[in-house]
């Protein structure tokens, strides 16, 4: 699983502009159609609307007629794309030339899974796309038509909106940097700032460049307008995130408030099974180790006066948090999957951000960076070991190295 084939091209100051007279989605799908017809790609992994329902599924498609129902940016995120790409490649690399179209948080999950050796990138062209957020799954399923309209509105405005999920409203990584040494994706689709008029296809790696070449698309359009808009939105959303996290932290801090957040948990473990970073074969909390004899339960009940069932729900969330917080990409899949509407992704996103800052680590942004816990730095956490001898790092500051 080498990442060397993704060595960064010098500087991609430009992108290929695709006219979007019939809407941005049509324009993007037009490019994919051509890529399949000319065999520049053997197949594309893309969300497709399931016939007869309003839901979306990931489809690995070769047949261009299926593209009609495909949507590179569906209003909801039914299944995390990074997880799908892992399922597709974990047990051996793909021998065909395949593109996967992922939202930025899905792309970053894919990169984390790559680092965890749960995913191969060989022969995969990763296409990321600017994302304005996704509508909460439950709201969408209840009122699909209304949700679709709200999503179109969000796509117009780009600065997040009450219509999208809470983690999306405060997401400042809704686009991916195109200037890094080890980028996350190979080709990025720039939408914001170009809405309606055109779509930008920005090559990030030689792989991305090759695809454009095969399609006779020249990367000769300036990115300035797009970049300016991204910066603008990022600023608004970062500020919103800072404020939200500040207030939210006050609401969940301390054992009592924290416990209250998860009070309604029915221990279904949906959050764990949809989480792309929860890649364990079997969750420890589903294993026999956590199951005790009735005698033990009785003893515990006696010691505490009473024993609430299901057991260890808080322990489950804390355990999961300690395992995946460093790699959490704030995709919100857990909250969409929660039948009890617990604000689980907001909690994990906040804790994840602070943990990641402590390690100066941004998950999924760089394919060649090793996982935070696998890198040993001698001067790391000196404020814990020898507080008198070092300057404490300010972990409350929202840093952005994107």
């Amino acid at each position: 699983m080498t990442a060397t084939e993704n060595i960064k091209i010098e500087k991609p100051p430009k992108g290929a502009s695709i006219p979007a007279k019939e809407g941005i989605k049509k324009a993007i799908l037009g490019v994919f159609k051509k890529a399949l017809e000319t065999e520049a790609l053997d197949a594309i992994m893309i969300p497709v609307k399931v016939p007869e329902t309003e839901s979306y599924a990931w489809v690995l498609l070769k047949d261009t007629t299926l593209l009609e129902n495909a949507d590179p940016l569906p209003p909801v995120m039914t299944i995390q794309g990074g997880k799908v790409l892992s399922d597709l490649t974990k047990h051996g690399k793909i021998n065909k030339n395949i593109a996967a179209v992922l939202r930025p948080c899905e792309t970053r999950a894919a990169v984390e899974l790559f680092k965890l050796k749960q995913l191969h990138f060989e022969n995969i062209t990763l296409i990321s796309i600017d994302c304005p957020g996704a509508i909460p799954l439950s709201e969408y399923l209840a009122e699909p038509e209304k949700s679709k309209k709200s999503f179109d509105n969000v796509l117009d405005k780009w600065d997040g909106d009450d219509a999208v999920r809470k983690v999306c409203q405060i997401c400042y990584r809704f686009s991916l940097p195109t200037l890094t040494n080890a980028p996350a994706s190979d080709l990025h689709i720039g939408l914001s700032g170009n809405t309606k008029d055109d779509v930008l296809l920005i090559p990030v790696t030689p792989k991305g460049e090759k695809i454009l070449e095969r399609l006779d698309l020249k990367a000769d359009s300036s990115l300035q307008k797009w970049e300016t808009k991204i910066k603008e939105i990022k600023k608004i959303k970062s500020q919103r995130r800072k404020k939200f996290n500040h207030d939210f932290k006050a609401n969940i801090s301390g054992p009592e408030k924290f416990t209250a957040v998860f009070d309604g948990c029915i221990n279904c473990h949906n959050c764990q099974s949809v989480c792309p970073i929860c890649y364990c074969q079997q969750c420890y909390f589903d294993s026999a180790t956590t199951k005790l004899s009735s005698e033990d339960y009785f003893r515990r009940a006696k010691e505490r006066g009473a024993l609430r069932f299901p057991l260890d729900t808080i322990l489950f969330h804390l355990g999961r948090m300690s395992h995946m917080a460093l790699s959490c990409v704030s995709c919100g899949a857990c909250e969409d999957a929660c039948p009890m509407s617990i604000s689980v992704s907001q909690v994990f996103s906040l804790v994840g951000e602070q943990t990641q800052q402590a390690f100066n680590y941004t998950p999924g942004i760089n394919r060649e960076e090793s996982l935070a816990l696998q890198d040993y730095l001698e001067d790391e956490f000196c404020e814990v070991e020898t507080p008198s001898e070092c300057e404490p790092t300010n972990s409350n500051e929202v840093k952005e190295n994107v």
Partner: protein
Amino acid sequence: MSKKIGVYICECGTNISDRIDIDSLIEEISSLEDVGVAKKYGLLCSPAGKKYLAEDIKKEELTHLVIGACSPREHEQTFMKVCLEAGLNPYLFQMVNIREQCAWMISDKEAATRLAIKYIRAGIKRVALHKSLEKIELESNPDVLVIGGGIAGIEASLSLAGPERKIYLVEKTDALGGMTNKFAQLLPHQGANLSIVKDKIEQVNNNEHIEVFTSTAVEDIHGFLGNFEISVTNQEKDSEKKEFKAGAVVVAIGFGLYDPKETPAFGYGDVENVINALEFETMISSGKIVLKNGKPPASVALIHCVGRKEKGYCSKTCCLYSIKFARYLKDKLPNVDVSEFYQDLCLPDKSDQNYFEEAKKKGIHFIQSDEIEIKDINDRIKVKYKSAEGKKEELSVDMAILAPAMVPSQDTPKMAEMLNLPLDETGFFKEAHEMLNPVATPIEGVFVVGCALGPKNIPDSIVQSQAAAGKILSTLIPGKKLEPEVKTAEIREEFCTGCQTCLSVCFYGVISFDEHKGISIVNEAICRGCGSCVGSCPSGAIKIKHFTYPQLYREVLEALR
């Protein structure tokens, strides 16, 4: 089978009984689940105490044992032996330290007793979850592979070879002797002429228990203490391949020399009559000290510390052999003017100071200097330097002899990879502990000696070879089986996701990745049970015997209650 846990509290003379109310402790814990017996005794580690304990274990038919006494570092082994004698698996025993951690720490008797009760209860709860562990025995090969036929490798081979132990001595060049083959003479107090090295080579060649492979490279080594499998190829005889087994490996691959061309200021390769120390040794051997034009030099500069700054360490040997060169020059060419340019003098051994003083008496100049620059000016060598006073000075000479730093042998990285050995920041092999365990490595059964570990002189190399030999002789006893660590790590296949994090943290290199199954595998025969992999596994797929999560959980829970 129902459990019957025996709890024995040692009074430790009065060490524990003075500070802890043992009777109330016993009263408190005897009602705990599965506790069959709770007793106190004066001094459990005494012969009478051990006898009493062994008899009681049998009489009471105990299934588990908890002893509240001193630190396990002091007597855990003692009581494990008692368990064995009494027919109880020694891993069904837990020792609780209520002396150092309670009695000696807390002056208030009541508080100390409360803490001791908690700890004993933790021990009882933990021991109830213990499983019997059986020691296994492995056949062990007493033979040794020695890599490198220099003085260190020769000494190791001679120290180890014997009727019950064969030595395979592998040398990559066509002759034994290593770097000493290039020396004309040794230091006077080391015997001066090279006959001692020649004698040792002779002894190796005449020793029927040493098989020497010259012009041979080590291709592969894998295995572990007592069971290494080795393959070597002869570089001359059409790459003839040989395979054999050994129980231990001694790496004595020596050193290389810093290339003075890397620092152009020394003029090596540019300025005529600037030579390095080994080239001068060759000149001594030939008996002709001459310049390129065939005439003897009237003045010679000896330049110490060539590459010291660049490499970041002192090579320890150069000062003395530069003095040896100066004295040789004075003996052969009485009118020659000799100047030694040094940064710091390194004269660590007991006879060195005298050797240096004598050189001074012979009229050899010692110039403390820095920022040396050697130039060719009108066919003479000009040594420009900054004096100790900080003044820019210069000296014209006919010949300059450079003393280059000793650097790691070019084979070091390859050997390190083959044996999974760490290198330090200088590029030499890293000791298991520089001060406390200087010839051992993290890999049991693999030793590094001589200049492969860093610059040193012949006597120090010999000392290290003898040290490694001593360690091997005391562990690899012919006919004796090895008892590997019992408390090893174990990867549960159904939990392992194949992320290979454990491979990156295992200091002993005992975990491998099974590509077919997509999971990591621990070689339990060589696992040392350090637990690093257990802590690193994101999926909790690794458990370590005797330190399982349930055991630790119960123990901590009770200790904190």
